[in-house]
C-alpha cells in the first residue's frame, strides 16, 4: 500500500467535505442560530446582564462574524477528523464492501456510517440550537451522546463480525443490530434539558442540521471514492521502490 498517498487522500477528502459542510451551514443553519442567539440576547436585556445599545450590537456583530468564520474552520477540522475514521474503516472493509468500483464502495460505507454513527444517535439525541442547552448538564449530555455513538458503532461492528462467523451474512447482522440498538434506544437516559425555545425554531434547526451533515457524508464518500479510484493507494509499490 502507498501509505503516504493513502493518508493524503483521507485528509484531503475529509477537509474538502468538511469545508463543504461548513459552507452549507453558513447558508442553511446560521439563520436558525442567529434567531436562537437573538432569543438569548433578549434574555440578557431582560435580566439586565446587557444593555440594548449600539455598542452592544457593534460588539455582537463582530463576534458573530468571527464565530461564522469558525463555522468553516471547524468544518474543516471536524471533516478531517471524521474523514480519518472513515478512511480507517474503508481501508479495512474495502475488500468486503459491496459495489464494483471504489466510488460505489465508498458511497455504501458512507451511507452505513451516516446511519450508524450519525442518524440513529441523532434520533435519540437530536441537535439543539443555542438557548436550549443548560451549561450545568453539558458534560453529562456529551457523555450520553458519545456513549450512544460508540454503542451504535461497536454494536454494528460486532453484529457484522458475528454474521461473518455464522455465514448467513446480511440478515443476522441487520436484524441483530436493529434489535440491539432498539433496546439501547429505550434503555439510554433522555436528554435532561427542557426545551424552552419555540418548537418551530428547534424543528427547523434540526432539519437543516441533519440536511447539512448528510451532505457532508455524501461529499466524503464521493470525494474519497473518486480520489481512491483515480490514485489507487491500495496498490503495492513496485519492489524497486521498497
Amino acid at each position, binding site marked *: 500500500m502507498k501509505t503516504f498517498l493513502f493518508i493524503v487522500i483521507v485528509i484531503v477528502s475529509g477537509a474538502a467535505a468538511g469545508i463543504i459542510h461548513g459552507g452549507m*451551514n453558513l447558508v442553511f443553519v446560521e439563520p436558525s442560530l442567529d434567531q436562537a442567539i437573538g432569543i438569548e440576547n433578549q434574555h440578557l436585556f431582560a435580566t439586565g446582564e446587557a444593555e440594548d445599545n449600539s455598542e452592544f450590537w457593534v460588539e455582537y456583530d463582530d463576534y458573530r462574524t468571527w464565530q461564522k468564520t469558525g463555522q468553516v474552520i471547524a468544518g474543516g477540522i471536524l471533516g478531517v477528523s471524521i474523514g*480519518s475514521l472513515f478512511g480507517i474503516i474503508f481501508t479495512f472493509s474495502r475488500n468486503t464492501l459491496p459495489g464494483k468500483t471504489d466510488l460505489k464502495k465508498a458511497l455504501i460505507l458512507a451511507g452505513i456510517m451516516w446511519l450508524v454513527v450519525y442518524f440513529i444517535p441523532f434520533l435519540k439525541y437530536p441537535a439543539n440550537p443555542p438557548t436550549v442547552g443548560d451549561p450545568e448538564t453539558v458534560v453529562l449530555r456529551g457523555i450520553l451522546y458519545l456513549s450512544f455513538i460508540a454503542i451504535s458503532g461497536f454494536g454494528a461492528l460486532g453484529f457484522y463480525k458475528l454474521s461473518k462467523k455464522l455465514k448467513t451474512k446480511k440478515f443476522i447482522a441487520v436484524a441483530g443490530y436493529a434489535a440491539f440498538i432498539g433496546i439501547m434506544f429505550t434503555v439510554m437516559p433522555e436528554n435532561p434539558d427542557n426545551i424552552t425555545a419555540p418548537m418551530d425554531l428547534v424543528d427547523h434547526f434540526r432539519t437543516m*442540521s441533519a440536511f447539512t*451533515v448528510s451532505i457532508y457524508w455524501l461529499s466524503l464518500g464521493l470525494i474519497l471514492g473518486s480520489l481512491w479510484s483515480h490514485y489507487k493507494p491500495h496498490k503495492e509499490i513496485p519492489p524497486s521502490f521498497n
Partner: protein
Amino acid sequence: MSQSRQINVSKNGVPVIAIMALAIIFVAGLFVVGFDQGHIFSLVYGEEAFQDLYIHELTHDMRHAAGFPCH
C-alpha cells in the same frame, strides 16, 4: 518477502503507523470541535482558558450544527 519489510503492516497490508496517525487525528479533531471547554488552551494558559473558552467559542456554531451538546 513480507517478513523482510521494515514497516509493520496489519493482516490486509495496511501500515499500522498510518492507522495510528489517522486514529490520533480522529480523536483530537473530534475533541476540538465537539467537546473542548478550555482544556487544550489550559495546557498553556492555565485556569484562564476555562473562562475564555476560545476553542469552544470558535467552534460553537459547528458544534451546534453538527449535533454536539452545547449551551
